[in-house]
């Protein structure tokens, strides 16, 4: 006979479900508001309307250009951060020693240091280099903020890699770049893909530093949403929030399906 786990004693479990509800349910409020038939933030009054989703597709309203801006910046950021992250993680793994460890701490520190401090520093630096409100400026900042994620994701892949593989390749006379490109890289591709995805999402969502280094020229989607929240009138805001919610849910479902298929294949 299996004794009952203490969680079945009731109250804690009910409380846990209430807390899960607190996490999930409030986000759903954006859906009815997006469907309102009024042109201010409200629940639908005399029926539902899709006009606010139509507004998202209207180029002149600014939502579509912002989405494209964010997607472009996030793609560039993911490409650069992944390349830098792979090179660093693989190099540090193969070389070892004090320099890679020190640089790893520096590369990971944006995860702990409050972004507002970085924002203050970057406003000064970009002002001096005339990179404020430029695509280059935003992409470079996003790369710095995404690097911790790519380095961690690729590092996790590398920690499962057998060092003897490298020794074997080298003893057979492979040149260093061959070892990195043909032996190590193919073995860590899942980590590289995860790192690239995380970098894309980090850039797509970044707001704190972007807020300070952009103005009228570069309006990313989070920046557009930020301004819109402060005005708190346009229901198109709820429509874009609904779109983001749907994308997130679909991505999570896709991930769990892929994971399940991989488990079945094993």
């Amino acid at each position, binding site marked *: 006979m299996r004794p009952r786990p203490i969680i079945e004693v009731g109250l804690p479990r009910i409380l846990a479900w209430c807390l899960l509800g607190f996490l999930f349910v409030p*986000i759903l*409020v954006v859906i009815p508001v997006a469907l309102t038939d009024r042109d201010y*933030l409200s629940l639908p009054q005399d029926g539902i309307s899709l006009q606010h989703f139509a507004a998202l597709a209207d180029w002149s309203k600014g939502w579509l250009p912002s989405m494209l801006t964010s997607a472009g910046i996030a793609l560039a950021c993911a490409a650069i951060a992944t390349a830098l992250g792979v090179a660093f993680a693989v190099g540090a793994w193969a070389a070892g020693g004090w320099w890679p460890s020190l640089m790893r701490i520096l*590369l990971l520190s944006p995860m702990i240091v409050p972004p507002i401090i*970085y924002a203050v520093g970057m406003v000064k630096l970009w002002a001096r280099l005339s990179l404020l409100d430029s695509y280059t400026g935003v992409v470079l900042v996003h790369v710095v903020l995404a*690097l911790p994620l790519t380095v961690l994701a690729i590092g996790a892949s590398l920690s499962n890699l057998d060092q003897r593989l490298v020794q074997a390749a080298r003893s057979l006379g492979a040149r260093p770049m061959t070892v990195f490109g043909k032996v190590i890289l193919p073995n860590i591709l899942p980590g590289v893909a995860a790192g690239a995805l995380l970098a894309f999402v980090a850039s797509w969502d970044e707001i704190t530093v972007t807020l300070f280094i952009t103005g009228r020229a570069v309006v990313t989607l989070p920046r557009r949403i930020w301004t819109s929240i402060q005005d708190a009138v346009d229901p198109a805001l709820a429509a874009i929030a609904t779109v983001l919610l749907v994308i997130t849910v679909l991505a999570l479902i896709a991930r769990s399906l892929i994971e399940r298929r991989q488990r079945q294949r094993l």
Partner: protein
Amino acid sequence: MRNFKRTALLLTLPASLVAICLYAAPILQVLALSVTEPKPGLANYQNLFANAAVGRVVVTTLKVSIMTTVLTVVASYIVAFAIIHMSAGLRRVSLFLVLVPFWISVLVRAFSWITILRRRGVLNGALMETGVISSPLDLVYNLLGVTIGMVHYMMPFAILLLYANLSDIDRRIMQAARSLGARPATIFWRVWLPLSLPGLALATLFVFVFSLGFLVTPALLGAGKTLMIAEYISVQISSTSRWDLATSLSTMLLLVVGIIVFAAMRSPALRAAFVARPQQ
């Protein structure tokens, strides 16, 4: 042989250069400006400590951060503890309910709370219609709204951290305790809780440090009325151009975060939690 190691070190260079030039340098400049702008010396720090507005902002920040940390860690522990005891199916549902808010934009979440909590929002509307209250309550743009938003932001993160930590605990220890006659409550207080301490400490550390320097949620849900350090710094550089205040306050914030992290790393339990690989 040496050639291999040299190539490996060369590979670390591009990212290192980016981190040094585009991360370390600008932050060091913030530190430098705090003692040179407008003129060399520690005058900025004297002004900082004498400034009553800064004092109020620091008190608000500490109040919100401590409340957020306590509420988040306790609530997240309850959820994580429940999740590891669920059947596989329910666990998938629960993790989904945690992962959606975890991945969705912080802006979407702040916006949802504004929609629900404002004076003409969903919650006040429902309460008035059912006759529970006769005039709308002030639920947002104050300490309450900021704390609700912050706890909601931090919880998924803390739950995933605690869930990973609790999953690593060897269940045979509980079986042993049970077979020796310990009651469920005893098993919880004397076995589960002590074994969860590293995870709890790590969650507390992260949530507190994130709360101290958090800009987005306090700025949107506080709307200038509940002012925390990050938003105060932001006002100094974007509207009033007080670089002396912005840089010295940033330096203090960095110093406090640094001391907290450094002190935490000295505790062996936390170091162990850091070395143990977090899930996913």
